[in-house]
C-alpha cells in the first residue's frame, strides 16, 4: 500500500506535466490558427484595395468604349448605304428594295 502511495505522489508530477503540456500545446495551436487566419485575411484583402481603382478604370474605359461604339455606328451607316447601293447596282434594282440587316467583320486567319 505504501508503494501505491509513493507511486501516486510521483504520479501527481506526471499529472501536472501532462495537463500543462496538453493545454500549452493546444494554446499554441490556437495561436497558430489565429495567426494563419490573420495572414490569410491580409493576403486576400490586399487585392481588394486596388480593386476599387480597377473599378474606376473600368468605368473610364466603358465611357471610352461607348464613344467608340457611337462613332462606329455612324461609320456603319455610311458603309450600309454604300454596300446597299453597290448591291442594288449590280442586281439592277433600286436600293429601297434591299435591306442590310447586319454587318460582321470576318476574322481572316492566314491559311
Amino acid at each position, binding site marked *: 500500500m505504501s*508503494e*501505491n*502511495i509513493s*507511486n*501516486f505522489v*510521483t*504520479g*501527481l508530477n*506526471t*499529472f501536472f*506535466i*501532462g*495537463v500543462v*503540456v*496538453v*493545454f500549452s*500545446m*493546444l*494554446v*499554441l*495551436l*490556437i495561436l*497558430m*490558427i*489565429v495567426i*494563419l*487566419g490573420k495572414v*490569410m485575411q491580409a493576403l*486576400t484583402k490586399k487585392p481588394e484595395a486596388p480593386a476599387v481603382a480597377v473599378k474606376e478604370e473600368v468605368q473610364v474605359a466603358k465611357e471610352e468604349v461607348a464613344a467608340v461604339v457611337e462613332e462606329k455606328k455612324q461609320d456603319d451607316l455610311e458603309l450600309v448605304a454604300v454596300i446597299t447601293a453597290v448591291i442594288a447596282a449590280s442586281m439592277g434594282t433600286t436600293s429601297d428594295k434591299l435591306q442590310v440587316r447586319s454587318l460582321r467583320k470576318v476574322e481572316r486567319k492566314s491559311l
Partner: protein
Amino acid sequence: MMSEFLSAISDFAGQSGLATILGGEYGYLIMIAVACFLLYLAIAKGFEPLLLVPIAFGMLLVNLPDIGIKDAPIGIYHEDGFQPGGLFYYLAMGKDFGIFPPLIFVGVGAMTDFGPLIANPKSLILGGAAQLGIFFAFLGALLLGFAPNEAASIGIIGGADGPTAIYLTTKLAPDLLGPIAVAAYSYMALVPVIQPPIMRALTTKEQRMVKMSQLRQVSRTEKIIFPIAVTIIVTLLLPSAGTLVGMLMFGNLLKEAGSTSRLADVASNGLMSSITIMLGLVVGATTKADTFLTPQTLGIIVLGLTAFCIGTTGGVLFGKIMYYATGKKINPLIGSAGVSAVPMAARVAQKVGQQECPTNFLLMHAMGPNVAGVIGSAIAAGILLSIYG
C-alpha cells in the same frame, strides 16, 4: 478392430474443444457468451457494428479452445519440423508493432474536416479539457496498485480513442492490451448511452438551448496549411506524439490537397476498412479466457469508465466556463464532444441540444471540439509515452 475404432473415436473426442470446456475450463464458456452478447449488441442494437462485429468475432474465435489461431510458429523456417503459426499470430504483429493504429489515423484524417476547428480555434481548449479524464484515471489506477506504465495505459481509455489506446498500450503495457482495447472500444460504442446523463446533469435548460452563430467560411489554403503546420509544430515540440498526429494530418492533407483525392478516397474507405477488419479481429483475440478473466480486467473496465465520465465532465465544465466567458454565446454541450470518439460524440451533442430546442443545430459546432479531442488525446498519449516509454 472394433476396440481400435472406439479408442480412435474417444481420442478424437478427447482432443475436441468441447472436452477442454467440459474438463473444467468454464472461462471459455463465459467468453463465448460475452462474444455472442457483443455480436447481438452490434447487429441487433446497432452499437458501432463496424468495430464491434470484428472485435466480437475475434473474441469468439480465440475462445473456442484449441483453435490454435494465435499459436506461435514452431521451429525455424525452411528447417525440418517447422510449423507455421496461426493466422492471428501474424496479423497481431500489425497491432503489437504499432502499425495498424497509425494507419487507422490516416483514414480518420482523410475523413475529418478541420474546418469547424479552424473557424473556431477556441474549441481546441474543449478538446484539451476532455483529456483531463486520462490523467485522473491515471492517478486512480496508481492508487489501485497498478504500476505507473500500466496506469498510463489505463488512463488513455478516457481519451475514448481506440487506436490511440492500442498504440500507447502496445508500447507501455502490452500485457494489458486485451482489457484496455476492449474497454476503449466499448466506451466509444457506448458514447450515446454514457454521455447524455452527465451532460444534462451539468447544464441548465437555458444553457442547452443556446444557439450558436454560424461559423465563418474557411479558405482552402488555410485547410491545406493547417495539417502541415500542426505536424511541424507538434512533432518538433513533442516528438513522441509525432507518429499519431503526423499520420492523422497526412490523411487530412490527402483530403484537402484536392489533387490527391484518389489517395484520400482509398485511405478513408479501402484502407480504413481493411485495417479495421484486421485490427478488430486481433483486438478481440486478446481476450482469451485464461488471460482476460481476472480481477485486474474488472479494475481496468471500471477505471476506464471513470476516465471516460471525467473526460466528459471536464469538457462540459470548460464548455460552461466558455459559456460565461463569451457572454452566453457558446453552448456548453459541445464541450462533451471533446472526448475524441469522432463523430459519435459530436452527434450526441447535437441530439441532446435538439431535445431541448428542435431547431438547434450544434453538429458543426461540436465537430470543432470533437476533432480537437483527437489531437488532444494523441498529444496526451505522446506525453505519457515520453515519460514512461
